[in-house]
């Protein structure tokens, strides 16, 4: 996206993203960075990064950042938030990270109502390790470990994270968005903003799920990948607000 080069949010460093052409991680980073700037939170923010394609977040964000072991970001963020008064804490996690190896951590952070924001990038695949099946891989979808397509009889069904976490009383806000077109980027931005507000008003756990393109893992040109998000992923993972307890004015 051309506007990415024009004006870099203060909360990002000058480092160029390493993501593949058409990958949505970069857009999502940018939305989060812009929102950090908007709320003037750069000096209070502590980001917990995943193991996955976004493992380089510490080089991209000009905020304090902690790496977490694969899947454990919610546990790391829980502790940071609890010992750091007045700091703004968020995790950024992929679907393998959050919905497979880190399932226990995300479920319990949500159940405890930890006052953190989780930015969850669902690209239906393991990007970093070379395109294997993720817990969110669509039925029939071909991956490196489901060469004949995901057979739900053998590999089970995709996990719908937003739907799964929304019922917990500790959860204040969950919305599923995508960033495949400028119109949707604007909607996604407002979801990020809302998630921030929930933490700032100490309402408890908030999560934004981004349906995200992985052209490399999917073996598709970027334009087709964006279209695939809209046409296929949204059927399995409908967009919308799954939880919203309400903000103070």
């Amino acid at each position, binding site marked *: 996206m051309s506007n990415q080069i024009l004006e870099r949010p203060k909360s990002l460093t000058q480092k160029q993203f390493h993501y593949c052409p058409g990958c949505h991680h970069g857009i999502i980073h940018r939305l989060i960075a812009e929102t950090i700037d908007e709320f003037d939170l750069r000096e*209070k923010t*502590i980001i917990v990064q995943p193991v996955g394609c976004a493992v380089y977040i510490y080089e991209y964000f000009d905020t*304090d*950042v902690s*790496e977490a072991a694969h899947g*454990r970001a919610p546990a790391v963020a829980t502790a940071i938030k609890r010992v750091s008064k007045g*700091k703004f804490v968020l995790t950024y996690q992929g679907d393998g990270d959050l919905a497979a190896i880190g399932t*226990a951590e995300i479920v319990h952070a949500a159940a405890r109502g930890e006052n953190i924001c989780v930015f969850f990038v669902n690209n239906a695949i393991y990007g970093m390790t070379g395109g294997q099946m993720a817990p969110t891989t669509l039925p029939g979808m071909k991956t490196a470990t489901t060469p004949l397509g995901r057979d739900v009889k053998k590999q089970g069904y995709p996990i719908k994270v937003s739907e799964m976490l929304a019922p917990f009383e500790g959860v204040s806000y969950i919305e599923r968005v995508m960033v495949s077109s400028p119109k949707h980027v604007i909607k996604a931005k407002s979801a990020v903003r809302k998630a921030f507000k929930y933490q700032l008003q100490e309402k408890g756990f908030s999560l934004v799920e981004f349906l995200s393109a992985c052209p490399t893992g999917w073996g598709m040109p970027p334009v087709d990948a964006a279209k695939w998000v809209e046409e296929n992923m949204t059927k399995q993972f409908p967009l919308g607000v799954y939880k919203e307890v309400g903000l103070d004015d």
Partner: protein
Amino acid sequence: MVRVLMKGTEAMAEAAIRAGCSAYFGYPITPQTELIHYMSRRMPEAGGVFLQAESEVSVINMVYGAAAAGVRVMTSSSSPGVSLMQEGISYLVGAELPAVLINVMRGGPGLGNIQPSQSDYFQSTKGGGHGDYKLITFAPSSVSEAASMVYDAFDITEKYRHPVMILADGALGQIMEPVSLPEQGASKPSVKNWALTGAKGRPANKIFSFYLDPKGLEEHNLHLQEKFKNIDDEIKYEEDISDDMEILVVAYGTVARILKNAVQKLRGEGKKVGIFRPISLWPFPESALKSASMKAKQVFVSEMSYGQMLEDVRRIVPDEIEVKFYGRAGGVVPSPNELYIKLKSLLERGV
């Protein structure tokens, strides 16, 4: 200093609070449950954070988070729980984060049982998790020592930015003894300009152990190795030896304590028996043990395992000195009399 009667687990918990530990994360497991119970009550009183996590995997990553944020943090567990923490401990080492960990060892392998054991020596002192590292490991043999060890561990872990393990066993966790509790506030958290506190008036801080470039990772490892060498300053041991020992007894923790009785009895019978107790298991008191062993005709090692520390002792003691071993495992604690008989028969057979 206040002198009170306390259980090992509780004394360690209270010592941590007095050392300024302000975050504790835990998951129930016998035989260290009293420690987590104690912390659930005392930590909030002391203005700190207590959290019972969903697993030891989460616990160690919470410890990692709190350490990254710059506060003094501790966890405690027992053998199976500590096994689950190994990946996280490796991350603490890689990211150079200070934390105090307690393992109140129980019988294994597998679920084993809840009785005392010393079978996690390898796990603690040889690395445990992935990567090139060793964990600073101290083994107390009395409640009082356990308390002061935990207290000092907070300074040591910060000094090296390297986690410290207190390797206790179920017997030590459970016994009650008079303890002189260290003073609150005498030990102060160090200033940590690397900690994550928000990038205000300074460049952003990053906590990570990821070095994609092999040269970068090698450099990081060289730095760690260099640091590990300095940890030799923390070597601790206790010895009660003479120049012409028939036997030098080597043991740590609860077994060392039991052996002391046997040694006293034998000395009463005019036998020349010395005792050497490693207190730091890593770094191991190598040169002290070597010179002590050279004053003995033979060396006797006893552990509540089938010979883990034994491998270090065999490596260190000169080849011409015979090293004998007696181990009990599965949660069986050798009795003073049993060890006395063992030693006596070794003495009678002569060398």
